[in-house]
C-alpha cells in the first residue's frame, strides 16, 4: 500500500509540473504584455519588465516560474501590489469553504437519498416528477436561480437576508473578525460531523435495528445541544446566528443546483447493481425490501457517486464565481472577479494552480479510498 501511494505521489508530482508548464504556455501564448498599458514612460516600463523578469529568455522565465511554484510562491498580485497571491486567496478561502463544502455535503446526501428512492420505483410518476425537477434545477442557469430565490424568499416574503456575509448593524463593535468566527464555526461543524460519525460507528454494534436508530438520534441531539451550549457560553452566538441566516439562501441555491447530478448518478449505479447475484441472494433469504435497498444495493452503488464528489470538489472554486456574485458573498469569487476586471493575471493563475493541486490531492485520496471501499480493487505495487 505504501509503495503504491509513493508511486502515485511521484506520478502526481510529474503531472503537477506538467500542469504548471501548461499554464506557463497558456499565458505566454497569448499576445499580451503585462507592462504595455502602463501610463508611465518607457524607462519605467523597462524597469517593470526587469522587475517581473520579462526581459529574460523564455526558458529562464520558465525555470523561474517552476522553482517559484515549488516554493509555494504564486507571485505577487498586480492589483494590490505587494500582497502575495497565496495570502490573498488564503484569507478568503474559509468563506468559500463554509458555503460550498456544506452545500456539497447536503446536496450529496439529498441526491443519494432521492436517487435511491427513484431507482427503486422505476417507471412511476414519482420518478418522472423527481427526475424532471432535479434535471430542471441542475440545468437551470445559476444566476437566474439565485435571482429567483432572492426574489421569493428575500424580497417578496422577507424571510431571510439575501445580501452579503453579515449584517453590519449586528456586527457593529463586534469583538471578533468575520474570518476568525468563520474558522471557528468551520472547526465546530467538522468536530460535530466527526463525532456523529463516531457515534454512528459505535451504534453499528447494537444488533437491534430500533436501538441503533434511537442511539444515533440521541447522539445527534446531544451533539447539537453541546454545540449550542458551547456557543452560547462563548457569547458570540448572536454573530454566528447572523452568519447562518445569511448563509441559508446561498446554501439552498447551491444545493438545488447540484443535487440533480448526484441523484442521476446514484440512480444509474443503483439500477446497474440491482440485478447482481448477491441481491438475488438477499431476496431469497427473505430480507425486507428496505434493507436490501439500503444495505445491499446502495452501499455497492455508492462508488461512482463518491468518485464524482471527489472529482468535483476542487471545482467549487469555479462554481463560487456565480453564486458569490449573485449573493454578494464576499469570498474567493469576488477575488476572481476583481482579478478579471483589473486583468490581474497572477491571481487568476494562482487560482488555477490551487484548483489543480486540490484536484490532484482528490485523485490520490480517491485511489486510496477505493481500496477501502471496494476491497476487490488492487493496484500495481500493492501486496
Amino acid at each position, binding site marked *: 500500500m505504501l509503495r503504491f501511494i509513493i508511486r502515485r505521489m511521484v506520478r502526481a508530482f510529474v*503531472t503537477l509540473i*506538467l500542469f504548471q508548464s501548461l499554464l506557463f504556455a497558456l499565458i505566454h501564448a*497569448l499576445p499580451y504584455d503585462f507592462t504595455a498599458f502602463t501610463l508611465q514612460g518607457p524607462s519605467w516600463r523597462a524597469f517593470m519588465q526587469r522587475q517581473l523578469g520579462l526581459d529574460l529568455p523564455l526558458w529562464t522565465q520558465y525555470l523561474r516560474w517552476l522553482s517559484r511554484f515549488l516554493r509555494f510562491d504564486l507571485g505577487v498580485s498586480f492589483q494590490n501590489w505587494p500582497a502575495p497571491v497565496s495570502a490573498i486567496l488564503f484569507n478568503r478561502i474559509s468563506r468559500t469553504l463554509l458555503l460550498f463544502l456544506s452545500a456539497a455535503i447536503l446536496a450529496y446526501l439529498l441526491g443519494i437519498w432521492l436517487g435511491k428512492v427513484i431507482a427503486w420505483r422505476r417507471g412511476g410518476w414519482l420518478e418522472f416528477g423527481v427526475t424532471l425537477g432535479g*434535471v430542471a434545477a441542475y440545468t437551470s*442557469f445559476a444566476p437566474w436561480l439565485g435571482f429567483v430565490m432572492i426574489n421569493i424568499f428575500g424580497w417578496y416574503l422577507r424571510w431571510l437576508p439575501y445580501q452579503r456575509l453579515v449584517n453590519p448593524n449586528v456586527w457593529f463593535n463586534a469583538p471578533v473578525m468575520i474570518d476568525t468566527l468563520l474558522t471557528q464555526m468551520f472547526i465546530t461543524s467538522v468536530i460535530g460531523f466527526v463525532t456523529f460519525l463516531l457515534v454512528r460507528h459505535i451504534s453499528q454494534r447494537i444488533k437491534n435495528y430500533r436501538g441503533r436508530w434511537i442511539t444515533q438520534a440521541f447522539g445527534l441531539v446531544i451533539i447539537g445541544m453541546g454545540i449550542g451550549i458551547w456557543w452560547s457560553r462563548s457569547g458570540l452566538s448572536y454573530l454566528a446566528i447572523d452568519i447562518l441566516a445569511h448563509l441559508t439562501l446561498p446554501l439552498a441555491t447551491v444545493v438545488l443546483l447540484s443535487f440533480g447530478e448526484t441523484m442521476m448518478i446514484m440512480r444509474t449505479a443503483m439500477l446497474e447493481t440491482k440485478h447482481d447475484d448477491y441481491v438475488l441472494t438477499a431476496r431469497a433469504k427473505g430480507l425486507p425490501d428496505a434493507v436490501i435497498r439500503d444495505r445491499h444495493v446502495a452501499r455497492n452503488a455508492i462508488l461512482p457517486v463518491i468518485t464524482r464528489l471527489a*472529482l468535483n470538489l476542487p471545482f467549487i472554486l469555479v462554481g463560487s464565481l456565480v453564486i458569490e456574485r449573485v449573493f454578494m458573498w464576499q469570498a474567493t469569487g469576488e477575488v476572481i472577479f476583481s482579478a478579471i476586471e483589473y486583468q490581474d493575471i497572477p491571481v487568476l493563475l494562482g487560482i*488555477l494552480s490551487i484548483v489543480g493541486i486540490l484536484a490532484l490531492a482528490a485523485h490520490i485520496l480517491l485511489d486510496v479510498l477505493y481500496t477501502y471501499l471496494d476491497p476487490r480493487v488492487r493496484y500495481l505495487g500493492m501486496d
Partner: protein
Amino acid sequence: MTQQGSSVSTREKIRTYLQHQWAHRRWLYSHWELFLQQPLGRLGLIMIFIFGLMALSHPILMETVWNRTQFDPSIGFDITIMPHPTTPTWRHLLGTDNFGRDVLSRLLASTQTSFLVGIVAAVIAVTISTLIGGAAGYFGGVVDAILMGISDVFVLLPAPIVLLIFGLLLRLEWPMVAIAYGVVTGLGGQAIVVKSHTLKLKVKPFIEAAQAAGGSEGHVIRKHILPGLLSLTIVHAVFTVVGAVLTESLLSYFGRTQYYLSWGTMIWIGQQTFRWFTLKGQWHVILPPALAIMLFCSAFYLVGRALDEVLNPRLRVR
C-alpha cells in the same frame, strides 16, 4: 487463402450485403423503439425539436413577416413605441429591451448560437476523446503513458476560468468558446472514461476471435472497437452539449462575449438597466432567455439520460 471470388455468385453477394444492412437497420430500429418507450426521452426529443424549429424560423420570419429595421436582433429599433423597455404586446410578442430591440427576435437568433456551440463542442470533444482514449486503451504501453499523461493534466483545468482568462485578452467568438470547451472536456475526463471502456472491450472474446481469424489491426479497430465505443460516444456527446451551452451562457452573462447573439448576453444586457428586486420594468427581458437556457439544457440532458438507458445493457428494463 485461395481466391474464392468467382465461386460466389452475384446473387449470394447481394443477399449477404442485404442481410448485413438489415442487421444494422434492426439494431437501429430496436434501439429507437426502446428509446421511444421512455416518456422523459420523448419529452426531451420534442423539446429539442421545438428549439430546432425556433432556430430555423428566425431567418424565415426575418424574410417574410418582420420588418428588418424594426425587428433585426442586433440593430433593430421600433420608432413607433416611445418608452423603450416595453412589456409584451401583439406587435412585439415578448416586448422590447432597453435598446428597442425585439426580445423574441433576439431569442430566436440566439437559439442558433446555442445549437452551434453545443454541436461543435460535442463533435470536437467526442472526436478527441475517442481518438486519445481509444488509442491509449488499445495500444497500451508507451502510447498509453504519454496520452494519459496529457489527459491527467487537462482534467485539472476548469474550462470557465481558462475561457475567462482568454476573454481578458482576446475577443471571444462562439467558435472559440466551443472549441476550447470541447478540447478541455475531450482531452480531460472523457478520454479517461473512454480509455477504461476500451480496456474492458479489448479483452472480450470476439476481439480475440477476430484477431485469430486473421483480422488486421485496422479491421479490428474499425469493425469492433469503434462500434463498441459508439454508445459511450453518443452519451458523452449529448452531455457535452449541456456543459458547453451552460459555459457559454456563463461567459456571456459575465459580459465577456458581446460580439454575437446569445442568451447569456441577453440577460447581461437586460441587467444593465434592471431594477434588480422589483421585476417591474424588465421581467420580459430576463425571463425568456433564462427559461430557454434551462429548457434547452434539460432537453439534452433528458435525451442523454434516455440514450444511456437504451445503450447501457445493464440499465435495460428486465
